[in-house]
């Protein structure tokens, strides 16, 4: 089981390297800055973990859990990137996804995730609970983003669609794994469940590598609106006009 886990983890590491290499070659890197920052962090973190395991194996467990906790927080960057990309071509709601992502993350972080650390019973239980609640928060954010993308008819394209699909599978599997670990205890987790974490990540990375292999622009719409393609200033004026008309109407 240990060798299998290590093999999965190493495969993930190779895929991460491939993703970064491909990103720099195909210039997708600069189009998804937050996502590639996260990927670079994971790549460096995994490398540091391998070095720790090789040079100071007695400190590996502590180093791994610290890296794991920081990674859970860093994953919110992927959500911010996804939310930015969904509404990129719509000037009026360009930051809607980002605003909602930050709002949901901050509110659930304060009322749902943080109490697990403040009212901790034991280190392992706290880690499981923290990861589980952070994953549920990410799933909620993703569900909201999916709903908004559908509501506004946003076309995702291969790149953003792949980002969302890969991350959704990872988050869904994490929720199931951590819920199982919490229910069946640390013993079963260290024997069976632990390799589900790198497995879900490898699945996610595989989808990301395939979808971000090359830049795929968002498909053009056949017909969208009577007025095609406005610039931001025109949209600000239109939005202000709509608001002033409605405000006038409300004050009657």
């Amino acid at each position: 089981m240990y060798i299998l886990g290590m093999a999965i983890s190493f495969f993930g590491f190779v895929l991460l390297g491939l993703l970064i290499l491909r990103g720099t070659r195909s210039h997708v890197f600069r189009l998804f800055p937050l996502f590639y920052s996260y990927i670079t962090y994971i790549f460096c973190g995994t490398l540091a973990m391998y070095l720790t395991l090789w040079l100071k194996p007695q400190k590996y467990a502590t180093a791994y859990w610290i890296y794991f906790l920081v990674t859970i927080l860093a994953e919110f960057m992927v959500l911010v990137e996804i939310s930015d990309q969904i509404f990129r071509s719509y000037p009026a709601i360009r930051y809607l996804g980002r605003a909602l992502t930050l709002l949901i993350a901050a509110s659930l972080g304060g009322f749902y995730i943080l109490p697990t650390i403040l009212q901790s019973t034991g280190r392992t239980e706290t880690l499981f609970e923290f990861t589980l609640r952070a994953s549920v928060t990410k799933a909620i954010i993703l569900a909201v983003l999916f709903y908004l993308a559908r509501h506004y008819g946003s076309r995702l394209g291969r790149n953003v669609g792949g980002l969302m699909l890969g991350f959704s599978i990872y988050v869904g599997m994490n929720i199931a794994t951590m819920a199982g670990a919490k229910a069946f205890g640390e013993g079963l987790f260290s024997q069976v469940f632990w390799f589900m974490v790198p497995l879900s990540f490898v699945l996610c990375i595989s989808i990301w590598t395939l979808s971000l292999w090359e830049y795929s622009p968002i498909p053009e719409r056949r017909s969208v609106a009577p007025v095609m393609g406005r610039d931001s200033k025109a949209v600000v004026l239109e939005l202000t006009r709509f608001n002033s008309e409605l405000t006038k109407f409300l004050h009657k």
Partner: protein
Amino acid sequence: MLIYAAIAIAFLIVVLGFFRKSPAQQADEFLPASHPAPNTGNIRWLDLSERIFDPSDARWLRDELAFPRLAELLTHERKRLAIEWLRALQASFDTLVRTPEISLSEAPEAPSPGSWQMLWLTVRFKFLVSYALLVVRLFGPYHRLIPSFSWVPFSRESGRSFQQADLVDSRSIH
């Protein structure tokens, strides 16, 4: 444990449902919505709202011609028209929001205060139009949309004091 398993399964179903599109849905995706989106710059369309939300016709029927049933019917019909008008305004706004921007560069733009301002205007409009729809649905088209606070003693006093202050100011100017 069970609740989290249900969350995980429901979440994956939502995700798969999102990526699966029926052919009918794809075909209908760009058809106009059920509420036609008028141009807000159209004066006649804006004038229409004046007529819809004007209670004088209903009052005339009820008070001067003494036809309360007819006035009630007119109010009911105006309520339907008011809801349609507000929905059409919302549809027009949604069309604007869903209009993609033609950008020459593919690189992500740097965050600008203009984008946050646009988001604020969008959220504000959505909130106000939802509120207006709720008030019209609940109380009809002739109800005040912004509640009057004249019954609050503080507001009356403060209003009076503001008026007095204005008078003092105007006297001091002259």
